């Protein structure tokens, strides 16, 4: 296994889990229950993806292709859920007070950029982005 793939294998689920948990905690600070509910629901996506990724690495055959597949699918969740937060944050119906909005926004940007970074790197290594 190449060094970079090994590195992604080691940290993709951790980063995903941490960013998901941060979003979950910040979501609880929202001033309306509907906003807290929505952002809690979205944050469950990356948390679930992180946990599923841990399980999949445990049962995977360990070949480069199978490891890359798991990493890529986790990175897609990061990218799309990060964008999901950014899509809903500007809405007036689910508006939250500025500190919460800024924190969630930063978390979401990091999530999306990290997902994109992993995808670009795996693409450069020659792995399929649609496994």
């Amino acid at each position, binding site marked *: 296994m190449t060094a970079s793939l090994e590195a992604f294998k080691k940290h993709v689920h951790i980063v995903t889990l941490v960013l998901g948990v941060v979003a979950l905690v910040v979501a609880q600070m929202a001033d309306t229950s509907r906003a807290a509910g929505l952002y809690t629901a*979205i944050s469950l996506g990356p948390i679930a993806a992180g946990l599923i990724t841990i399980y999949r690495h445990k049962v995977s055959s360990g070949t480069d292709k199978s490891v890359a597949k798991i990493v890529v*699918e986790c990175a*897609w*969740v990061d990218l799309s859920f990060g964008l999901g937060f950014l899509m809903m944050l500007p809405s007036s119906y*689910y508006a939250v007070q500025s500190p919460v909005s800024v924190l969630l926004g930063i978390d979401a940007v990091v999530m999306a950029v990290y997902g994109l970074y992993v995808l670009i790197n795996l693409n450069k290594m020659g792995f399929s982005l*649609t496994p």
Partner: protein
Amino acid sequence: MSNRSHDSYGDYAVVQVPKDQLKSAFGLFLVYTGVLICIAVIWGGGALGNGLTFYDMMKASVLGSLILGIIGFFTAKIGGHTRASTYVILRHSFGRVGSMWAGAAVSGIACGIGWFFIQAWLFGTVFSTIAKELWGSVPFWASAPAASLWGAVLMTLSAAFGYKGIAFLSYLAVPLFLIALGGGSYAAITEAGGFAAALVAQPANPMPFAGAVTAVVGMYIAGATITSDISRYSEKPNDGGWAWFWQVVLLQPVLMLAGGTLTLLTPASDVAQAMAHLGIGLGALVLIIFGQWTTNDNNLYNGALAFANTFRVKKATMTIIMGFIGAVLASMTAAGFFGTDPFINFLTQLGRFLPPIAGVLLADFYVFKPYKLGKKNADERYTFGPGTRYSRYNVAGMAAWILAGLLAPSIPGIVALNSVLLGFVLYLVLAWGASAMNLKYEVGTWIEGEDGF
């Protein structure tokens, strides 16, 4: 296993997908979901909400989706075993020339040109409505004719890349769409009176339960028929079937309930418009753009696959030609040059002939070939590759297909389901009967060339 053909037309359009190109069940699930999620399904749910209570609506959408899930599971499984598109698979049950006619008529013309342009026109129309709601006025680029045009171009772009293009888009768009739909539906339904009110609301124009199930099945039976176009990429034979089953059974009822519940509470079922009105503008735009994009690029993808089995043209070229025709027609329709009714009537009539294909296919693959011809191994039941001999016409398959399409509407029950069942029974009667009486039901010979054609 047959020798491998050269992929001359791109995206393995007329040859088997190589084993090193197969995709995961999760990827297939996302692609199928991308096909399902669109404004039309939410509006279809709205039609149910006009005629049923919440619980009946839930039962009808789940039951209808289960029927679709089961039919689509078995058609997708054929794609998983053969690693070939629906139209290439049809070479065995319709004959080589029969597969050209059937595929080009019901998928090439209907999906690739007809429904593609109608959906692109719908995209432009809804987009301009939302633009007006969001910005107060409609700039030229957001007007219905312009949006239909650039919308169709976007859809053509992802379809031109073949399976990789539509899968790439689905990985990104499906989660975003579901987040937007979840947040948007909750907001729209809450503001319209809430879920508690929806549970006890009475429909404006009550409709029979069976009619509702018919509508649910009819709305997506075409998708259940041509599942092999996606499942041909599945790593294991059953992966595509399960991916299809779970996305339609879990998500179609959710989409329909989103539109239906809103209709129960208000006269409208347009979740996207309600979202724009409530200040969830970006979500509304995502709902429309990605919803229509991921569905309509599949129309083009299916149509191009069908035509690639009919004409010796690269699939990407065919996609671009069809996309261009669709973009022009959609834009002209949006500009008021002509209405959509004549086209929709024609496509609806043509659509009657798509479900019987599933019946013939299922009967041939699961019953006739293994139990009459003794081909027990599902992976080797259909062979493809250079030198493979097909009949030019399988008269039993073609007759069953046409008769089922003509007769199904006159039989009581769920028309789309009748079409499938009638195609299934008629094919077995004709093929088995002819075989038992030593009558020739396969006419002529076509030998597959190096290019898979």
